C-alpha cells in the first residue's frame, strides 16, 4: 500500500521542517508553545455562532507561515486532511438547528449552518496552529517545553514516545499491508476476515520493534530526559513575541474587528 508509505514520508517531512533557520525557528520553544496555546484558547472561547469575528485570527497562521518560511500548500494540505475529524463534531448541527439567524437578501441562514461554519473555522485554526507549532519547533522540543512549563515529566515522556510510536506503527503497517497486497493478487484478498489477525500482528510487531528502539536509546545513555541541539533561552525576543501576540489575541477577542469596520463604513460613508 503505497499510501501508507507516502503518509509516512509526508509525516517525516513535517519533522524536517523544524530544522529550518528562520527567526521563528530560533525562538525559545516555550514562547511558541505558550502563544499557540493562547491562540487555541482564544479560538475556542468564541460564541458558538461566531463566524466573522474569528476571521481576523487567520492573521496568526498566515504570519507564522510566511515568517517561518514554511511551505503553505503543504501545511494547508495537512489542515484539509485533519479538519474533517474536527468537523464531524458539528456535522448534524444544520439538521437540528433550524432557527434562522441571518438573512442576506432572500437567503436565510439557520443557526445550524452558522455553528457548523464556526466549528469548521475553529477546526482549521486550531489544527493549523498546532501543525505550525510542530513545523517550527519539532516535537521533542515541544515535549521539553511542556516539561519546563511544569507539566509532569512522565506526561512529557509519554507524549514523546507516543509520537515515536506513530512512526513505528506507520512503518510496520506499511510493510505488513504491502505483504498482504502482494499475495492478494490485485483482488481484495480475504477482505475483512484477514484484517483482525493482521491488526493483532501489527500490534505485536510494533511492540517488539519499539522495544528494540528503546534498547538502542538506553544503550546510548537515555535516562528519560530529552535534549535538543538548539540552544536557546527565554529572552527579550521571546517576551516581545509572547506579549505581542497575546495583546493581539485579547484585542481581537474583546472587540469584534469586522463588525467595528462594518459600523465605521456604514456610519461614515453615506
Amino acid at each position: 500500500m503505497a499510501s501508507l508509505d507516502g503518509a509516512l514520508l509526508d509525516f517525516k517531512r513535517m519533522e524536517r521542517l523544524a530544522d529550518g533557520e528562520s527567526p521563528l525557528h530560533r525562538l525559545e520553544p516555550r514562547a511558541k508553545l505558550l502563544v499557540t496555546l493562547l491562540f487555541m484558547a482564544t479560538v475556542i472561547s468564541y460564541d458558538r455562532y461566531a463566524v466573522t469575528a474569528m476571521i481576523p485570527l487567520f492573521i496568526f497562521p498566515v504570519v507564522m507561515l510566511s515568517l517561518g518560511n514554511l511551505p503553505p500548500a503543504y501545511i494547508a494540505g495537512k489542515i484539509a486532511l485533519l479538519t474533517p475529524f474536527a468537523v464531524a463534531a458539528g456535522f448534524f448541527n444544520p439538521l437540528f438547528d433550524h432557527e434562522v439567524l441571518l438573512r442576506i437578501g432572500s437567503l436565510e441562514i439557520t443557526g445550524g449552518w452558522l455553528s457548523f461554519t464556526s466549528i469548521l473555522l475553529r477546526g482549521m485554526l486550531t489544527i493549523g496552529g498546532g501543525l505550525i507549532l510542530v513545523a517550527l519547533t519539532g516535537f521533542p522540543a515541544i515535549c521539553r517545553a511542556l516539561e519546563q512549563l511544569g507539566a509532569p515529566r512522565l506526561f512529557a515522556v509519554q507524549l514523546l514516545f507516543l509520537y515515536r510510536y506513530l512512526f513505528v506503527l506507520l512503518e510496520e503497517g506499511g510493510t505488513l499491508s504491502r505483504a498482504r497486497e502482494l499475495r492478494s493478487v490485485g483482488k481484495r484478498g480475504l477482505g475483512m476476515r484477514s484484517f483482525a489477525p493482521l491488526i493483532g500482528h501489527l500490534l505485536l510487531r510494533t511492540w517488539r520493534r519499539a522495544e528494540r528502539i528503546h534498547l538502542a536509546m538506553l544503550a546510548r545513555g537515555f535516562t528519560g530526559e530529552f535534549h535538543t541541539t538548539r540552544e536557546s533561552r527565554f529572552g527579550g525576543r521571546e517576551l516581545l513575541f509572547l506579549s505581542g501576540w497575546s495583546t493581539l489575541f485579547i484585542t481581537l477577542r474583546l472587540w469584534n474587528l469586522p463588525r467595528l469596520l462594518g459600523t465605521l463604513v456604514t456610519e461614515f460613508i453615506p
Partner: protein
Amino acid sequence: MSHSSVEVRNLRHLYPDGTVALGDVSFRISQGESVAIIGANGAGKSTLLLHLNGILTPTGGEVRINDLLLTKGTLATLRRSVGMVFQEPDDQLFMPTVHDDVAFGPLNLGFKGEELERRVRDALERVGVGHLREKAPYNLSGGEKKRVAIATVLAMTPEILVMDEPTSGLDPHARRRLMGLIREFPHTKIFTSHDLDMVLELCPRTIVLHEGKVAADGPTLEIFRDDELLARCRLEKPFLMQGCPVCGKRKAT
C-alpha cells in the same frame, strides 16, 4: 584508550518463560583484543551482547567492565565505556536527521555547544559520512545506515565496541569497506557474526557459543580447523578455508 577489559563470570540468563538463554558463561577479554562470538541461531549470542551493556540483568553470575562490577549504580558510567551497535540500523537510528541521531548519545552524556558539534563532526568523518550530516536516516542506503549507526556510538567515545552482526545485509563492496574501517578502530572489539570470513580476517580470537554455553574459546584459526567442534555447534568453515570450486584444492587450512 585507557585500560579497558570485559569479564564475564558464570553468567546465567533465564527468560521469563523459563528458557535458558545462557547457562554459566565465563570469559575475559583484555584491552585492544578483537574477539568474535559465534554460534548457531539461538545459541545465546544476542542475549550475551545485551548483558555487556547492562540492558539485561543476569539471573546469575556477573559482568565486569574495566574491573567494575555492572550494577544499577555503575550502569551510567559503564554504558559510556561500552558502545553497542545493533544489528538493524533502522532500530538504532530514530532521530529526524543524521546529525541529531549522532548527537543523541553525547547530549545524554551532557555535552553541549562546540564540544557537542566537534564530537558529531569527528564521529561522522571517522566513518566517512560527513556529507550525510543533514540527511534523514531513512533515506540512506544500507551501507550508509550502518556507518551512521557506528558513528552514533563513536560519538560517545567508548573504549569497548560491541557489534551485533556488523556486516549483515551489506553488499560485497560495502562489507569490504566496513571491515577496513573496523580494522582501524583501536578499541577493544567484540562482534557476533555469521560472516565467518569476516571473523577470520578481523578477529584473532573466537568464542563459540552452543546452547547457552561456551563450547570453545581460543585462536580463530584453531577453532575453524576443528571440524568436529564446528559440526557439533552447527557451524561451517569460512569460505576462505573451504575447497576451491575450480580445482578442488583447499586454500588455507
